[in-house]
């Protein structure tokens, strides 16, 4: 069967907006009803701001492989750190070029990554501050790291320059989209703090359930559709994967999500006596996030294993972040996207099988792990934690000096729907209770 890579990538990219819709719906379902409209409105604004920031300068700093860029020479080797494309997407050939597909896909990817902190810091993060934060993320933080990974930057070149496997590999965005978004969520939680009433005066967390589990679970289904597009398009456009592997990528994506959700179902059934719907939904998304990195380079059995581990990690991470570290994350974004994404990056080094693009199935399954690949993956993780996280912290902290992140106490009491938007999502229902009061 002959598959046109361009046509398949184009079709796949058009599925990605489902992931944005799914994440918005999931975030809405996980917050209280008094903040539902605010979260959905924030999602729309964040998508708009991220797309605009990426249009203005993001793409010019991310670029594509082989395009002009700035490189430092360290130890006699080039360390390309930022692209030098024209601003406002002026260097893109819009007549069906691969660059135009990359620009379209990245505009969606950066919006997806920028939406991740919305769920984490929801219910107390001001809309204006959210937009400012998203502009900085999509205009500067994301493009620079994505350049290192996907556009021939120094992480991608670790294999060529230093013999570390194939360099840092991430087919579908476990690092660039998921971990970047998850770490930004962590930064925002540090900066805005927990919701009022979440913790008692002696530090015990109170349960604040989301208002609509059906939204959450339907959001998961939409995310799955979007993720199929994300992984297929990313693998073809950024990793040069043969489009005939599209079915394998789709199967791996589905198996990973399913295995992760089932693992979380079992864990919560054992821990609490019943499967927990919102935690299981988080397990599903963590399976998607973790499976992205290796989706094109592993056989289905490995994808199941990657998903199982992600599903086991999520409830443990959520519980420890909330109980021990005081992280009030209504959407579980840090556990799902940062922890899941980091596991996905490691999984590439452990399970990845790298063959020539046209290798047959037998060669693919028999291929050994690439020597040094796991070190390249660790270097990517070290860069995310050691450079991206502190820089992101500094940038978002500075933004908070000009546009305060946290809403006034009265806004939290009223709910952000009324306080910032003037109308609630469910005006015919009583939505005000006193569970926010300090106990």
């Amino acid at each position, binding site marked *: 069967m002959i598959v046109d890579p361009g046509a398949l990538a184009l079709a796949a990219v058009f599925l990605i907006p489902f992931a944005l819709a799914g994440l918005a719906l999931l975030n809405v379902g996980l917050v209280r009803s008094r903040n539902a409209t605010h979260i959905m409105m924030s999602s729309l604004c964040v998508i708009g701001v991220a797309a605009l920031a990426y249009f203005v300068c993001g793409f010019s700093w991310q670029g594509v492989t082989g395009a002009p860029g700035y490189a430092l020479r*360290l*130890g006699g*080797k080039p360390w390309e750190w930022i692209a030098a494309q024209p601003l406002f997407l002026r260097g893109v050939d819009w007549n069906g070029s691969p660059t135009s597909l990359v620009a379209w896909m990245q505009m969606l990817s950066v919006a997806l990554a920028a939406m991740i902190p919305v769920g984490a810091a929801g219910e107390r993060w001001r809309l204006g501050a959210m937009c400012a934060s998203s502009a900085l993320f999509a205009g500067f933080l994301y493009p620079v790291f994505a350049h290192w990974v996907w556009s021939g930057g120094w992480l991608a070149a*670790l294999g060529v320059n*230093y013999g*570390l496997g194939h360099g840092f590999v991430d087919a579908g965005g476990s690092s660039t989209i998921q971990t970047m978004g998850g770490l930004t969520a962590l930064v925002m939680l*540090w900066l805005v*703090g*927990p919701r*009022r009433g*979440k*913790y*008692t*005066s*002696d*530090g015990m*967390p109170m349960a604040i359930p989301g208002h609509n589990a059906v939204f959450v679970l339907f959001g998961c289904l939409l995310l799955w559709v979007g993720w199929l597009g994300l992984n297929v398009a990313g693998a073809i456009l950024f990793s040069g994967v043969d489009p005939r592997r599209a079915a394998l990528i789709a199967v791996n994506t589905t198996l990973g999500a399913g295995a992760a959700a089932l693992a979380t179902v079992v864990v919560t059934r054992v821990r609490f006596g019943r499967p927990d719907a919102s935690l299981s939904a988080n397990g599903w998304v963590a399976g998607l996030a973790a499976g992205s990195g290796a989706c094109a380079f592993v056989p289905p059995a490995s994808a199941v294993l990657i998903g199982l581990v992600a599903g086991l990690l999520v409830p443990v991470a959520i519980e420890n972040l909330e109980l021990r*570290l*005081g*992280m*009030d994350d209504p959407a579980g974004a840090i556990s799902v996207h940062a922890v899941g994404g980091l596991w996905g990056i490691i999984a590439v080094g452990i399970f990845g099988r790298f063959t020539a693009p046209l290798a047959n199935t037998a060669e693919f399954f028999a291929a050994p792990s690439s*020597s*040094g690949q796991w*070190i390249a993956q*660790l*270097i990517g*993780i*070290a*860069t995310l*934690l*050691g*450079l991206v*996280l*502190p820089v992101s*912290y*500094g940038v978002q902290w500075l933004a908070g000096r000009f546009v305060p992140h946290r809403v006034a106490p009265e806004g939290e009491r009223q709910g952000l729907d009324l306080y910032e938007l003037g109308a609630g999502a469910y005006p015919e229902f009583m939505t005000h209770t006193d569970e926010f009061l*300090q106990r």
Partner: protein
Amino acid sequence: MKIVGLFLLLAGWLLVVMAVMLLHTETSRALFVLVAMGVEVLGLVLLFRAHPLARGGRP
């Protein structure tokens, strides 16, 4: 404590870059990278401890 945590994170990353540039065998690079990530973990621990917001910080 926040500043120290952030600097430890950056120091860990610089150690990783040094390991990539200056070392040549896979074993030595791996060891150095793992040690550098240990430094980063220390920085993360400090950052988490520096943000005790949940412990009654916001009544």
